[in-house]
């Protein structure tokens, strides 16, 4: 295949703007997937991706399309994650392309996440093909959205394709536009191999499947290759492409995308953004843009039953096989026993991981409230990176605590600016920019502590704007602030797993709310249970779960005995799902009480 008959492109879209459905139609039209084999969101293979309508893993699918000029083009559609948690992964997937479809919902218009990815794409020098999707909907306002794209993003959208993933309208036009506007790959076929890794997956039989885009040179089975970042060398055992079925091919040449099987045991050995070159004929420079992955959010994961520790470890190991962005290490909590401190790219990544642990491995978990990483500078000038509030050194030893600050971009219709500004100010945000994208839409930029947005910020934002605002953020810097540890005491004992780091000015309000929520979730016991919140030695809030004085079944006669016995068994099961902390039975949800929204309180 001649390089100028190749097109590499991805799809940029906000969640719900119809990316996966559009991809389904493209697969159908190019004959990659027979209609009868079609299932919705074909490329999203994980259950969780389908259910949540999100893409977590990237992959390249090779398609063939005979265009109106009569030429058989090779297209690589590179499916990318669409969530802010996966910012860096998206940037690498985009770097594997020369162009991208910019899919915008004909009624929703441009949203923050779209914009963030558009800027990523423009940074990579990608050619954008605007697609106005869902034009079959009654609320569609395509002309207005075209204007929004032109004014808000500043690209020419006059040639935008009007399409509907649902009806299949405009798919041919869309593919023709890809061929006309997306440039063919450039590269040097004779130069030493340079292949960029944009994702990897673990396969039980083959080990790690390394997803690559060949930038220069070519690679074939039997080649010895060298990973420039990690410094390891492997033999290429197999070269594959996806059509989307897996097909073994002889080689991949410059401009093409595919999968290398090198007998690698864990995805941790294959970093996204890595450059692969020949072991003997090495390229001089690695490709630009490589970054080490940074976990932003940490949480403790513990088995409810301590004897499930091994089971939990196995489950985490198995999931981690396929998730290079996840980090973990053993952790011990005096309240929860043995478990793991796990790092995630963001809240979605964390939720998906925890859900898969419970669903696919059937382990009952207690997860502690997520925390960000703090840089704690001690008086002796040393610095500790702390993601577990329990690890904070004594106050007297601390010089200052720095917390991660992100730059958050919020897109909203202009009528919701007020509530958003209030929300951001409440969350210790500083406004950095406010720009009108069109007469009715505005973009706000804030610097906000990451800790303030990981909990429930997005939900709050949605509520404040009736779902119209969208959010994107990226790490900016570490900055010192007046931060303290808020402890929770149950029955006078500190429960380490419930400690959180908060801003001093907010500690009173947070402590009060936390104690109040805990009182609601901790069941009455045989004795009064005092719940207290404290900063240092100072108690700032206290409530009591009164002892349960009546715990007796009034009636138990012949017909009731089986039922009462089953009830007893259920109660014992329920008790098992609780954790004994000292002498107090604490249910799982208590450990997430920090997370619940303040509005839930009466």
């Amino acid at each position, binding site marked *: 295949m001649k390089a100028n008959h190749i097109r590499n492109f991805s799809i940029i879209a906000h969640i719900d703007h119809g990316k996966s459905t559009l991809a389904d139609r493209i697969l159908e039209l190019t004959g990659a997937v027979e209609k009868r084999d079609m299932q919705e969101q074909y490329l999203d293979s994980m259950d969780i991706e389908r259910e949540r309508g999100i893409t977590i893993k990237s992959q390249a699918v090779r398609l063939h399309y005979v265009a109106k000029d009569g030429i058989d083009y090779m297209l690589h559609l590179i499916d990318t994650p669409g969530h802010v948690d996966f910012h860096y992964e998206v940037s690498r997937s985009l770097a594997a392309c020369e162009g991208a479809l910019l899919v915008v919902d004909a009624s929703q218009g441009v949203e923050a996440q779209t914009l963030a990815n558009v800027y990523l794409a423009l940074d990579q020098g990608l050619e954008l093909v605007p697609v106005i999707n869902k034009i079959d909907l009654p609320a569609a306002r395509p002309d207005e959205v075209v204007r929004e794209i032109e004014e808000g993003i500043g690209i020419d959208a006059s040639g935008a394709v009007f399409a509907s993933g649902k009806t299949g309208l405009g798919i041919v036009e869309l593919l023709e536009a890809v061929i006309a506007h997306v440039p063919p790959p450039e590269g040097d076929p004779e130069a030493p191999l340079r292949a960029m890794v944009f994702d990897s997956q673990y396969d039980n039989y083959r080990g790690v499947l390394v997803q690559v885009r060949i930038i220069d040179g070519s690679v074939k089975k039997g080649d010895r290759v060298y990973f420039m970042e990690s410094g390891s060398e492997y033999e290429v055992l197999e070269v594959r492409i996806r059509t989307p079925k897996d097909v073994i091919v002889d080689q991949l040449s410059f401009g093409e995308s595919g999968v290398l099987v090198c007998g690698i045991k864990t995805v941790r050995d294959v970093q996204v953004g890595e450059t692969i070159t020949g072991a003997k004929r090495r390229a001089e420079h690695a490709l630009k843009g490589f970054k080490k992955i940074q976990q932003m959010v940490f949480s403790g994961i513990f088995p409810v039953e301590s004897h499930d520790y091994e089971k939990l470890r196995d489950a985490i190991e198995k999931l981690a096989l396929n998730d290079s962005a996840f980090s973990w290490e053993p952790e011990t909590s005096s309240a929860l026993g043995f478990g793991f401190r796990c790092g995630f790219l963001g809240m979605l990544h964390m939720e998906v991981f925890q859900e898969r642990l419970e669903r696919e491995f059937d382990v009952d978990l207690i997860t502690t409230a997520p925390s960000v990483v703090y840089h704690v500078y001690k008086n002796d000038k040393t610095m500790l990176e702390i993601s577990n509030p329990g690890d904070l050194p004594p106050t007297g030893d601390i010089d200052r605590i720095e917390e991660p600050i992100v730059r958050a971009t919020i897109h909203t219709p202009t009528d919701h600016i007020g509530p958003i500004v209030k929300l951001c100010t409440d969350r210790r945000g500083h406004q950095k920019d406010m720009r009108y994208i069109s007469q009715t839409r505005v973009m706000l930029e804030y610097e906000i502590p990451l800790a303030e947005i990981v909990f429930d910020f997005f939900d709050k934002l949605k509520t404040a704007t009736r779902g119209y605002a969208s959010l994107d953020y990226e790490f900016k810097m570490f900055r010192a602030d007046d931060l303290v540890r808020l402890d929770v005491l149950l029955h006078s004992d500190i429960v380490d797993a419930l400690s959180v780091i908060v801003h001093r000015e907010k500690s009173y309000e947070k402590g009060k709310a936390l104690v109040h929520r805990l009182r609601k979730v901790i069941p009455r016991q045989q004795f009064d249970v005092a719940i207290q919140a404290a900063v240092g030695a100072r108690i700032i809030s206290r409530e009591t779960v009164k002892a*349960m004085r009546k*715990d007796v*079944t009034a009636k138990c006669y012949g017909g009731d005995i089986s039922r009462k*016995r089953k009830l*007893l068994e259920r109660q014992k099961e329920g008790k098992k799902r609780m954790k004994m902390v000292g002498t107090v039975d604490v249910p799982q949800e208590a450990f997430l009480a920090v997370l619940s929204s303040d509005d839930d309180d009466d």
Partner: protein
Amino acid sequence: MSRAPKQENWSVYIHFPWCLKRCAYCDFATAVAAEIPRQQYLDGILRELQMRTVDLEPRPISTVFFGGGTPSLWGAQPIGAVLDWLDRWGGLQQGGEFTIEANPGALEHAPLADYVAVGINRISVGIQALDDRRLQRLDRLHDAATARASLAELQRLLGQGQLQSASADLLFGAPGQGMAELKSDLDGVLAYDLPHLSLYSLTVEEGTPLAKRVVKGLQSPPDDDLQADMLEQVPLWLAERGLHRYEVSNFARDQHQSRHNLCYWHGGHWLAAGVGAHGHLPGLRGDLRYGNHRDHRRWFAAIETGQLPEVFREDIDGPTLLTERILTELRLSEGIDLERLARDVGPVAAGKLRQRGLRLAAHAPLTVTARHLRLMPHAFAQLDHWVRQLAQ
């Protein structure tokens, strides 16, 4: 091979599901029908008894209990017919206890004396409260005056020696009833000098009209702390009147404890028939329990095709028997009979329970003697907690 009960004589339970109206708190197998199929139900009951007794050893029957529902709506003739059938099969024991439940509003169908005439010698009447407004809120059909009339009738029958014993049910801790109102209900009932009373704390059972009202916020749930106070107070008041607690909710003069119900709590065997009835019989391997259809149409359909009208049947193995024994016998003031337990589940399991009891007793309201393991009287409000502690 025919099977015999572990106790010397049989106990028999017959369920009669129909009521004139469903009470707000009730989650028993009940049905409200304009026309009650009295004769058809009698035929069905006799057929079920026939099927169930095929492989049971006929032995004298020491207790029969007609429960419901409102079995006093059935009429004296069918009740008499069932008793006759049982008498022909195993023989009704001289001095046995033959109880029927009655509701004050449902007495008119047959005077209580008619039931006595066909062999009933104990009547348990559902008074629940002696206050019109509270009775209404519980969806009871009768008013306080009707309740008093039926109590008076029981007193008369007892006095004439026509009844061997009699009992009244009262509910406590319903919203609107404070300690003073409870005392007034109790005094009202005690005036009739019955030898047995059952006092139940109002419980919100899933699926009942009461539960729906509570969920919708139309009615406040019972106050647990108030009920706990009442649970402490009631036994003191009743003891003064010679009525002693022998089970969590049951109080009696000497010799007037319900022998039928004691059979349940002691883990005895009983034969049961009727819609929603549960029986506990000796099986081929250990004990077995069965439960009948709660829907009378399904029960009839099974009976008419010659099948047992069961929805479930389960083997009660050793560990289950042990759990159930703790669950039921700890409800009794007398406590768990460790000797009998050793006979039923083996000395090792019984010994372990005794050890666990002894360990807990160091800081728990439990008394462990050579023969019994019992809860101290003041701890009955926490009974379920101690059951969970013991039933590991």
